[in-house]
């Protein structure tokens, strides 16, 4: 039958692969199984086979694609510059169109009813907060429990960032993508972003008209949903000098908006990850460097920052400005297994990768870890429990600034005496 949607992988995308295999060792699912069928080269060959009419989008094809994390570790290493992530999104859209199945209904529920509506998420998150307090989350089915055990405590959250506006604007204006889950479950990250950006002299607004960026929907083959979300966000973020997201998965997706909305290029070209914005502000002297020695901190690179956006220097620069010595956890940058809905849909592989990452962290001996993506943070927390404290690089940085200030104030008080 071949392809049936307009999203399908293009000939150009598929022909770019010469099957050299250089991507194989970087692919977590290939490393886990040793199977060609779980490798980028194999998946591209499978897409090719469907395109050429040799095979159908059948159950085997679906399994092969479902097992892919979408981590895009196969991209930077590829000398043919195969846009694997895009081809995979297109393939997932084909699967959704050609094989309406049970696992899709679960995803449709998760994506449609939860993430699309701020109201539902808010009520849900408040309930989840109570559940956490009463330890009811321990009763959740196993595949969800790993998700809930990675959450930060939700009770007593600060105010949502969406709707916020403030800051002088001397440095320019920022439209903040509050994010769907991000603003509910990772408010302190958004709060830190606002505080730091305003400290640097930006005017920061998190427009109420915004919605979920659509990354999860796009990764999951829900192209129409992804498009309609992008159509809402594009005008909502009109006019800002830059558009900032605090989760790597979201910033990566915003940067690819050209594909998702008519005027999407205008969003894509202005969007950056918060780590890039803050590192730049530090570099330009708009934000301070903390002189104190705060000890060691491990750095974990989210795939959507390292592989999809090729950003690695910035989070490290932020942590160094925060007075930390950065310890590399995983020079190869393997996926931690969080990968959006992967935790729920492929629990075993996800858990194995999470455990591998936890082992890498343990072997470095660090007690603090910085991760610029909320999904990774949850995954690592659920594998490590309280052993290690995990937060976003900008939160570690803001804390370090505040601690340094207190010390200065204490010193200032002591001094006259």
């Amino acid at each position, binding site marked *: 039958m071949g392809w049936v949607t307009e999203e399908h992988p293009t000939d150009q995308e598929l022909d*770019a692969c*010469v099957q050299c*295999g250089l991507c194989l*060792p970087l692919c977590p699912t290939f490393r886990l199984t*040793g*199977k060609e*069928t779980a490798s980028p080269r*194999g998946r591209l060959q*499978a897409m090719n086979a469907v395109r050429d009419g040799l095979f159908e989008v059948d159950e085997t094809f679906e399994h092969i694609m479902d097992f892919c994390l979408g981590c895009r570790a196969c991209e930077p290493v590829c*000398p043919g510059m195969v846009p694997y992530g895009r081809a995979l999104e297109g393939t997932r859209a084909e699967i959704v169109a050609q094989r309406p199945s049970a696992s899709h209904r679960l995803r449709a529920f998760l994506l449609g009813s939860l993430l699309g509506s701020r109201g539902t998420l808010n009520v849900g998150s408040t309930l989840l907060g109570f559940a956490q307090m009463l330890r009811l989350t321990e009763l959740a089915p196993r595949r969800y429990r790993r998700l809930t055990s990675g959450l930060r405590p939700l009770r007593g959250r600060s105010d949502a960032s969406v709707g916020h506006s403030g800051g002088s604007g001397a440095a320019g204006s920022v439209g903040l993508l509050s994010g769907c889950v991000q603003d509910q479950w990772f408010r302190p990250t958004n709060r830190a972003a606002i505080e730091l950006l305003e400290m640097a002299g930006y005017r920061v607004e998190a427009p109420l008209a915004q919605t979920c960026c659509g990354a999860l929907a796009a990764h999951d083959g829900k192209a129409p949903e992804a498009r309609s979300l992008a159509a809402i966000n594009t005008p909502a973020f009109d006019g800002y000098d830059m558009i900032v997201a605090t989760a790597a998965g979201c910033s990566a997706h915003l940067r690819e908006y050209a594909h998702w909305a008519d005027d999407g290029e205008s969003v894509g070209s202005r969007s950056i990850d918060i780590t890039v914005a803050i590192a730049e502000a530090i570099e330009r002297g708009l934000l301070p460097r903390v002189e104190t020695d705060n000890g060691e901190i491990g750095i974990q690179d989210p795939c959507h920052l390292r592989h999809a956006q090729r950003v690695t220097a910035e989070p490290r620069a932020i942590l160094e400005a925060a007075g930390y010595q950065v310890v590399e956890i995983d020079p190869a940058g393997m996926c931690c297994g969080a990968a959006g809905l992967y935790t729920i849909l492929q629990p075993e592989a996800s858990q194995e990768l999470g455990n591998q990452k936890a082992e890498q962290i343990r072997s470095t001996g660090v007690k603090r870890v910085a991760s610029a993506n909320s999904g990774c943070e949850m995954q690592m927390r659920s594998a490590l429990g309280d052993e290690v404290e995990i937060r976003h690089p900008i939160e570690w940085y803001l804390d370090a600034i505040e601690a340094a200030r207190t010390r200065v104030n204490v010193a200032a008080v002591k001094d006259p005496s």
Partner: protein
Amino acid sequence: MSLVDDLRSALSHDRVLEEPLELHLYSKDASMMRGEATCVVLTETTDEVAAVVRIAEDHRVPIVARGAGTGLTAGASPTEGGIVLSTTLMNDIEIDVDNRTAWVGAGVINLDLSTYAEPYGLHFAPDPSSQSVCTIGGNVANNSGGAHCLAEGATTSHVLGLEVVLAGGEVVVLGGEAPDSPGLDIKGIIVGSEGTLGIVTSALVRLLPLDPDVRTLLIDFETMEEATQTVSDMIAAGFVPAALEIMDQKMMVAVENWLHAGFPTDAAAMLLAEVVGETEAVTAEAALISEMAYKNNARGVELAEDEAHRAKLWKGRKSAFGALAQISPDYYLHDTVVPRSRLVETMDEVQQIADRYGLDVYNVFHAGDGNLHPLISFDASEEGMLDKVQRAGEEMVAACLRNGGALSGEHGIGLEKRDMMRASFTELDLDAQARLKEAFDPEGLFNPAKILPEGSRCFDFGGTRRPIPEGAWV
């Protein structure tokens, strides 16, 4: 019981693949020829390999070993059907630091071995450009070389012993720690046999100490002659650097587009030279290389500033084949060796052949040992294109042979070059090789139809070998 049932009871369910789409993904390596696997197994132990060999014999189906599938000559393509045996899960490493050796599973990735050995101050010297992915088993089977094999020798110089599963599922250990084991060097026969004599399950390899210091030079020239002359001058002066690699302008442009390694894309040719050793020695040698380059009108000599810069230059060199994918969907790569003194005229001839066929050819090669890698870049979906590429390729190989060259520098023969064997071997040579194959593999089940062309055995009355099947080229 059926073949698959037998295999599943010997291994486990999930390590025997039989879905048509899964088999399709194992039907070729990195070459242009596709076969059709009957099933795929992923073995974990030597005993499992032996069991699979016996099952293959019971069912009289071929067995084709596969490492990472980066071979460029269809060695791992199951062109006669049968079981594809994947070694990727056989990846134990046991290092003996005192003796500077290691027993490594056939499926261990070449670079993983060096990374593993690094904390002990050791590394595995053979470094094919595919080293980040290809396996030790594949390296042994193809006797693979690499940029740094100029001074250190190809895989065979680094293999001390092998554990091999032979016909009948017999497990033997050949060679060992001793520098020279008694009797015939059977291990030496297995190295380079491309899976046609048995399945290598693990190898005892020699590890070398890490180099105390290194200098990497990027030299650009206005003509290819000047670049190759510089290389010839060095060798003539009895000076063998660790690596000497040349890339032509077109190739540099493709790599730069992706990596931005800082290659001089306006130069006709670039020479990447590396010397290793004590600081004093490499400093002097780097100066000597510069001097020789300038004598041959080099435009500029750039020294890699630090390890990151050096790594980037090598990444550019090692990813060159893949970078061609930006230009067209397919490439066909040759691997011949010519005497260094004939490099330039051979390259000219190659270019003329390409021009005659209206094809695009790119060059990137191990200049130190005259190992040419002309790459034809093309789109196989164009009508008649494959045929054209194949014919041009054959003419190019013939030109290399005329210039005193050999059929393969390091990639092996596989199926792709099988029918060109007659151009370099006499009937008698081929017959001797065919008898050797028979001695190891009387049933003809190990990677059949590879290396030796049909009728290699004098008095060959039939047998399994046939011409390259129609449609094997993809």
